[in-house]
């Protein structure tokens, strides 16, 4: 039991101290490339001998410099990420990768280039017609350009190195999926905050090291007897679910997170990279294989049904939608999610979240009321 607590506390420490983690990696002799939401081909960075480092903004960050670039109605994830960049928090990174998967991300890249010229900006351009051959060909071409540049920044990327990186990442994904199931089985061992910290810490560590720790954690928890949980079981969905205030409200109300459809959580690891002769082809195909994400084109809008299926599998009592304020893609999905949950008879609640949020009393009341309803 004490080893479980020790691993959880170690990962919690990483999740809470990205700055220190960044310095440790760089002081240890590794180069780092920042990766903004939602999907960056991290395997390319890893194959170039560098460490990809997640940048998803910061809670409670006071915005001052970012206001010189963004109007107020851009999400707090990107506002706070830009603020960090303008403050010099990424100056030790070799480059920062920024995709164009939503309109605010498009602006983010341009503003980063203008405001943080000391750190190289690497745009990541994905196609939205991602399942067609035309889209795949385009993505392979874009990945090849990134491969070339990252190879120059780090070390040249051979097919072997890339295949190895893909293998390490697929392994990490598998272990993280297992962790999500483990946490669902053992809410008495892994609280909502700890679950979040285990996942979040993966953004700030070498994936191979993170895999080892989480694999051990899964093993240790798996050996514990499954005991009845007298609290409630929920699925969370949204861009982020890492607010410590919100997670402690969940805990206070005896709510366990037994699964998620969160961009910064399961969406990062639920789709493996197919192993192909040309590893770039596999990397591109993974992007075609992804489903149920608000920033990826899907006229069938499968996301709602996917969450319903997950809720049933994990025996969830309800779904909590954590809607990031000013996130167009998520806001457009919400009416369809609600419809899917209602049709399946799954109780759900919408809580608007924001990295600048300080007063959680409204959220707390909503969570309490929701718990009563379940």
């Amino acid at each position: 039991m004490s080893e479980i607590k020790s691993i959880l506390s170690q990962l919690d420490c990483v999740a809470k101290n990205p700055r220190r983690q960044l310095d440790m990696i760089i002081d240890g002799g590794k180069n780092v490339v920042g990766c903004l939401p939602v999907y960056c081909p991290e395997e390319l960075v890893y194959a170039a001998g560098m460490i990809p480092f997640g940048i998803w903004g910061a809670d409670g960050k006071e915005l001052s410099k970012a206001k010189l670039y963004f109007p107020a109605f851009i999400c707090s994830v990107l506002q706070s990420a830009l603020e960090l960049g303008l403050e010099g928090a990424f100056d030790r990174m070799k480059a920062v990768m920024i995709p164009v998967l939503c309109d605010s991300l498009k602006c983010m890249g341009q503003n980063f280039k203008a405001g943080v010229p000391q750190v190289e900006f690497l745009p990541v351009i994905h196609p939205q017609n991602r399942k067609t051959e035309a889209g795949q060909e385009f993505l392979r071409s874009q990945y090849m350009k990134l491969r070339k540049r990252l190879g120059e920044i780090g070390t040249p990327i051979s097919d072997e190195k890339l295949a190895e990186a893909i293998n390490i990442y697929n392994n990490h994904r598998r272990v993280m999926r297992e962790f999500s199931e483990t946490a669902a089985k053992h809410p008495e061992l892994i609280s909502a905050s700890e679950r979040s910290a285990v996942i979040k810490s993966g953004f700030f560590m070498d994936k191979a090291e993170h895999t080892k720790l989480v694999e051990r954690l899964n093993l240790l928890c798996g050996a514990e007897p499954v005991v009845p949980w007298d609290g409630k079981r929920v699925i969370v969905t949204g861009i982020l679910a890492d607010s410590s205030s919100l997670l402690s409200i969940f805990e206070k109300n005896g709510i366990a997170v037994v699964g998620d459809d969160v961009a910064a959580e399961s969406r990062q690891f639920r789709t493996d990279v197919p192993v192909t002769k040309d590893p770039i082809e596999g990397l591109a195909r993974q992007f075609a294989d992804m489903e149920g994400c608000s920033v990826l084109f899907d006229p069938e809008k499968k996301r709602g049904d996917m969450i319903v299926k997950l809720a049933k599998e994990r025996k969830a009592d309800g779904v909590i939608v954590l809607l990031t304020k000013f996130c167009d893609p998520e806001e457009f999905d919400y009416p369809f999610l609600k419809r899917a949950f209602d049709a399946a008879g799954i109780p759900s609640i919408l809580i608007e979240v924001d990295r600048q949020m300080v007063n959680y009393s409204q959220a707390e009341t909503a969570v309490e009321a929701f718990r009563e309803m379940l």
Partner: protein
Amino acid sequence: MEERKPAKILLREIADAAYQRAWDAKNAGEKVGWCASNFPVEIPAALDIPVVYPENQAAAIAAKGGGQRMCEHAEGLGYSNDLCAYARINMAFADLKTCEELDMPQPDFVLCCNNICNCMIKWYEALAKTLNIPMILVDIPYNTEYEVSEDRIRYIRKQFDEAIQKLCEITGKTFDPKKLEESMKVSNRTSRAWLKATDYCKYIPSPLNGYDLFNHMAVAVCARASVEAAEAFEQLAEEYAQSVKDGTSTYRGEQKYRIMFEGIACWPHLRHTYTALKDRGMNVVATVYADAFGFIFENMDEMMAAYTNVPNCMNIERAADMRIKIAKRTSIDGAVIHVNRSCKLWSGIMPEIERRLRTEVGVPTVTFDGDQADPRNFTPAQYDTRIQGFYEVMEENKKGGGR
């Protein structure tokens, strides 16, 4: 000899006729589409498929005072009030099926292109799912480079072919490459005429009231591939040429200050935004629409590049250069910037563009908060105060021997 109608009447008739044509087709049992404003219009034109433009309808509804009612209806359906007001108005219309300000037929398919924003994809996804109809997406990824790379052109080109094939399947029409060539030719002719007409803004005084362009641009965008549109813009250019000779203008009164209006019109408060400028002798002589909607291309590859080089798809350097070029050519005294609550992409790089405009062109700028279609996001008092302050700066500049 019968006196010919003024171009502005012709342009209005063309816009109205597009809606009528769609109604006639719908009533005759033909398939009708809803189309994103910057979807390659040459495709439906080549296939002779009637389409209408939700953005155009939403702007008209907002201008006629229906914006808030429609937005609130969409909010009742679960769409956040943070979302684009054009999208909200259209989702409300898709639910209500009718609108007193402007009606249009319901769609059998939707044609989407994200060269103006990815919000468009989510909006059209929602339409396709809600109405259970097919969606065709021509994906034009945001261009982070200055020029359009080969791989982008190949990708877009292939999507053209796929879009044509899918449209043929949906509508039962057959594709004739010659017709596409023809529609490309006409579209170029219209664009040239549009550029020629809008170029008259550079004259001092300008022969046109800049706000006229907000009305005319709908035809430049949506009806580009029609001969009538080409002819109407050619006539418009002739009229402006004559005005320059005669020293007349559609702007009434003295044009004391020449300004750039940056952003989409604030449709619900069009009159208010206009009057505050007009009262102070300001005429709009520069908008990005002038250059941005002149799609000029010689061949298919250039057409793919043209659809990438639209305002919301270009990187910050190109976006700034385009505005600086227009500002210099039209000799502006200042720029009024609409921080449009509906448009994250347009507004999200505007502060940096504003700084570059000030530095490179050396003119004062002012921003105001507004919205293209939701009247609740605009405060008349803020607008008036800012415009007055802006006016005073320009006045000082003039006294100081500036422009």
